[in-house]
């Protein structure tokens, strides 16, 4: 069943990361995002990625991480393909080989490496955060930061509803297939989608009445069942992170982001292999996903 992969990414545990305050982790994620987006050396980004992978391994979340990362693969393969033939660099580009209408460039291979490593690293770090943070704590933190209660409530409810509505959708698809509905194509669209929405509307009506009966939107001060406290460790880590970030940005600034696109020369066969590999990978993944959805 494909609703398995939709269960929240949170992995319960007691690792170092699990115990940190969400605020600390959010600052880390933002810091990592900024840093990685300004580094232009694939090797440094790769090193960063290795560190993240070690942390993921250490917090016992690797299995969930791998499954989530799979969803990124089609975009990564597409990215490699496009970058090799049309790099995100100002011209002139150095051609390495020619395949049909496509010219493969050295800068292309370079930027394919940088961009894909960047996305994977940021995604990995963000996943590490999500996998080790109980969603309820995330919302409590959001409220601590002044995000209105209603917003965090809506996000919680959304997360809760997604797997439920997916299940509902599966029932509806079976109900319509029992009436010999086509398995694919636009003719099956309304029979599949209208019942999901119509059912959801009844759900909204009853949910709003329930909320009203639970005093939702009362004027008084609200309290929270999840108690979160910033520890000394959290404060220390946040201060250290800010100092480290200042240092990193200073280094990045004086080194112009460690751009090594002119120094790194890739052999033509490597470019060809990477290029063809991305095409095979792209289609392979699409076929794999299509098959998984069918089952």
């Amino acid at each position, binding site marked *: 069943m494909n609703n398995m992969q939709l269960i929240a990414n949170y992995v319960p545990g007691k690792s170092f990361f699990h115990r940190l305050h969400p605020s600390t982790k959010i600052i880390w994620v933002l810091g990592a995002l900024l840093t990685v987006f300004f580094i232009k050396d694939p090797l440094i980004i790769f090193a960063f990625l290795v560190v993240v992978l070690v942390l993921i391994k250490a917090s016992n979340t690797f299995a969930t991480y791998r499954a989530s990362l799979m969803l990124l693969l089609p975009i990564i393969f597409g990215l490699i393909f496009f970058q090799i033939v049309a790099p995100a660099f100002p011209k002139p580009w150095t051609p390495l080989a020619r395949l049909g209408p496509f010219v493969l460039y050295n800068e292309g291979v370079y930027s394919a490496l940088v961009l894909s490593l960047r996305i994977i690293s940021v995604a990995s770090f963000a996943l590490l955060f999500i996998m080790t943070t109980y969603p309820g704590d995330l919302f409590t933190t959001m409220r601590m930061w002044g995000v209105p209660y209603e917003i965090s409530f809506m996000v919680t409810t959304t997360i809760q509803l997604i797997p439920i509505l997916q299940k509902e959708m599966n029932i509806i698809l079976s109900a319509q297939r029992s009436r010999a509905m086509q398995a694919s194509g636009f003719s099956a669209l309304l029979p599949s989608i209208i019942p999901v929405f119509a059912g959801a509307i009844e759900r909204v009506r009853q949910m709003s009445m329930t*909320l009203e009966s639970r005093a939702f939107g009362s004027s008084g001060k609200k309290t929270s069942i999840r108690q979160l406290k910033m520890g000394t460790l959290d404060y220390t880590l946040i201060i250290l992170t800010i100092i480290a970030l200042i240092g990193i940005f200073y280094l990045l600034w004086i080194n112009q982001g460690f751009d090594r696109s002119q120094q790194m020369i890739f052999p033509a066969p490597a470019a060809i292999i990477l290029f063809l590999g991305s095409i095979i990978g792209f289609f392979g993944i699409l076929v794999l996903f299509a098959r998984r959805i069918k089952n």
Partner: protein
Amino acid sequence: MTTTEAKLVKRPRIPTTYIVALIPVAAALNIVGSTINAALRLPTFLDMIGTAVVAMTLGPWWGALAGLITNIGIAIIRNPVSLPFALCNMVGALVWGYGIRWKMGKSFGRLLILSMFVGFFVSLTAVPIYVLVFGGATGHFGDMLTATFVAMGQRLWVSVFSSNILVSFTDKIISTFVALAILGALPKELTSHLELVEQKNLKTVIWITLGIVVGIAALLFIMFTNIAG
């Protein structure tokens, strides 16, 4: 329920709790929409139908909130890299919401134009994200179209925009009319203030969409071959 319409004189107050319940449901439905899209193997996304429904009934900004929450939800349960696309979802909501407010829903033709506007602005927001962050890839079948344009000698962002707008037009026209069908099933309290055309047969809509998209695609190909030549 009886068929006789009680004329609703003034626009009723929609309870806050109703909004607070409707938005998460719409956000979840956006995601379900994309799963149905995949299950039926359609060449679209269908990931903004919930947003469209909220934007049309509650207004553009509530729609935008639904869009934002959708992407936060996806980020938490699936993958965080989709977060930047919250922007597209919000832009779509704004165009839909204001469009309906500015009486773009009154006739079939106007609604068609509104859907194309939505498609255009969503593409305009999405393409920079795709090009700058994802190197031009979308991870969707549309990438093959992009690749074709690149092979025809177009620059990457032109290719991405061209292929994206084709998918986007198809997607938004169909989403608009599916949303219209859904509004028919909504309680009257929510839809009584809207000036909307009657639901159209989806088959007609699909044929019209196909016509528009094939037309634009042909135009693009001619343009690109001429420029290249």
